[in-house]
């Protein structure tokens, strides 16, 4: 296994090697992911940008161990990933707080599973409640939270578990534009503090550039990596950077690439669908 040895030597946090995912839909063979290879450094904030249906969520689910690849491998710290685990935390687009648990119990869910004692759990949960600014809501049930608050708790829950990698599947996709901005800044702040390795999937170009150290642009059907674009903007970033010249240039460059892909994707849809 020459391929298996290579990533171990590279010392990267996450290495995806030639990942392919196919499935059959109505007797038709569909390639959702085609030969995806990428590498993520320790502490790197990587965003994956692509049109809906390009398989970017599937890629994330395979890395999380929730879905299986048809071929190819994923290595974390040189070890082959073979299923889900607490070392790869995930935040979903849909609201996934456990509705029967309070905010505090939600955040400490993973810690309870680890068998951590109550005092230590309390300390960690308090820390993250503070970071997300929801200390006053510790004992509230999710039904009493707004969408943005729910996603903040979901992020805190994933981070409290202290994963090696945080996987985020369009976590702000269901939020309104204003809340999105606030959440992006909050996420950057959290990332500055924790320096977690983050893989963030989105279809929003601005979001991808604003957050990421590196933007991967994906194509649709079959899902391939079309470009790897480093984002040379200084850190820490605040929302003002979105109006800066380098940001806008980068954004329009990526938009152009995305546009080609979107047009291709639209052309493939049945009549009336696009």
């Amino acid at each position, binding site marked *: 296994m020459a391929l298996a040895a290579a990533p171990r030597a590279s010392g990267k946090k996450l290495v995806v090697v030639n990942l392919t995912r196919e499935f059959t839909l109505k007797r038709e063979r569909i390639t959702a992911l085609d030969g995806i290879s990428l590498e993520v450094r320790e502490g790197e904030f990587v965003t994956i940008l692509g049109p809906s249906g390009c398989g970017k969520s599937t890629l994330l*689910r395979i890395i999380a161990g929730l879905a299986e690849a048809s071929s190819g491998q994923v290595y974390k710290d040189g070890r082959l990933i073979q299923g889900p685990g*607490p070392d790869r935390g*995930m935040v979903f687009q849909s609201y*996934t707080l456990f509705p029967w648990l309070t905010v505090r119990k939600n955040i400490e869910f993973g810690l309870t599973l680890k068998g951590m004692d109550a005092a230590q759990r309390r300390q960690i949960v308090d820390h993250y409640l503070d970071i997300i600014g929801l200390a006053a809501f510790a004992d509230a049930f999710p*039904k009493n939270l707004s969408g943005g608050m729910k996603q903040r708790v979901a992020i805190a829950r994933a981070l409290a578990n202290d994963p090696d990698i945080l996987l985020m599947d369009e976590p702000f996709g269901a939020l309104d534009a204003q809340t999105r901005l606030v959440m992006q800044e909050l996420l950057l702040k959290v990332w500055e503090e924790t320096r977690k390795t983050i893989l963030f999937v989105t279809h929003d170009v601005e979001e991808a550039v604003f957050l990421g150290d590196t933007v991967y642009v994906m194509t649709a059907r079959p899902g391939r990596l079309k470009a790897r674009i480093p984002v040379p903007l200084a850190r820490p970033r605040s929302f003002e950077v979105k109006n800066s010249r380098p940001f806008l240039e980068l954004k329009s460059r990526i938009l152009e690439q995305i546009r080609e892909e979107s047009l291709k994707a639209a052309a493939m849809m049945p009549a009336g669908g696009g």
Partner: protein
Amino acid sequence: MGKYFKLNTPIPGKLYFSLSVAAFVLLLLAWQLGVTVGHLPPTHLPPPGAVARAAVELAGNGLINDIGISFFRVTTGFLLAAAIGVPLGILMGSLKVAEAFFEPLLAFFRYMPASAFIPLTIIWLSIFETQKIGVVFIGIFFQLVLMVMDVTHNVPQDLIDTAYTLGARPLEVFRRVILPAALPGIMDTLRVALGWAWTYVIVAELVAASSGLGFLIMNAGRQLSTPDMFVGILTIGVLGIICDMSFKLLYRWLFPWTEREV
């Protein structure tokens, strides 16, 4: 006035309550009118007063007993069906092999009406309590299992996946996510099943019993004592409402976290 006639729009609580009460009052009024103005024969429709008098008389003469015995049969059959049906339904809803094995079999039984089993239950279980309980059990068990299975199926996959990414193992996912997520729906299913249980106990008592509300109705019918029949039927309605409301209260108390207001 127009604001109370908007589609799917809430109305003040007081108005809601008044309307509910008004429906009952109107029914009573229509009933009385049917007797006094419509001249319906009392053997068909006794006046409300006569039914009330019959109720008082029966209350002092075995009605409580009949309620008790019917209640016992319903509760026993219901608890038995729930004790087996709920765990089985949860298992089928979360394990495909269990579903594949049990689902077609139970779906097959579900379409056989419990009342068709009554003669058979008499042969199997004679006409003792077990037979009545057996009819209640057959009446609700199969539906209950399949409904609990559906509820368990419907636990959002994202919640399950989240638990996995937080380090939960399959048994922990089952205990900490699937079970608590399915419980409110299961509770709803039980509430519906209890309503059916009342139907089946009466069916069983109409056919082969010497006590219980169904027997009371059957017996009153034989003696053409229509007010007594009314008392029996109305009692079942009242008991049904009490059961339903208790379940709703229990639901609110057990699951304060659900989005739905009941």
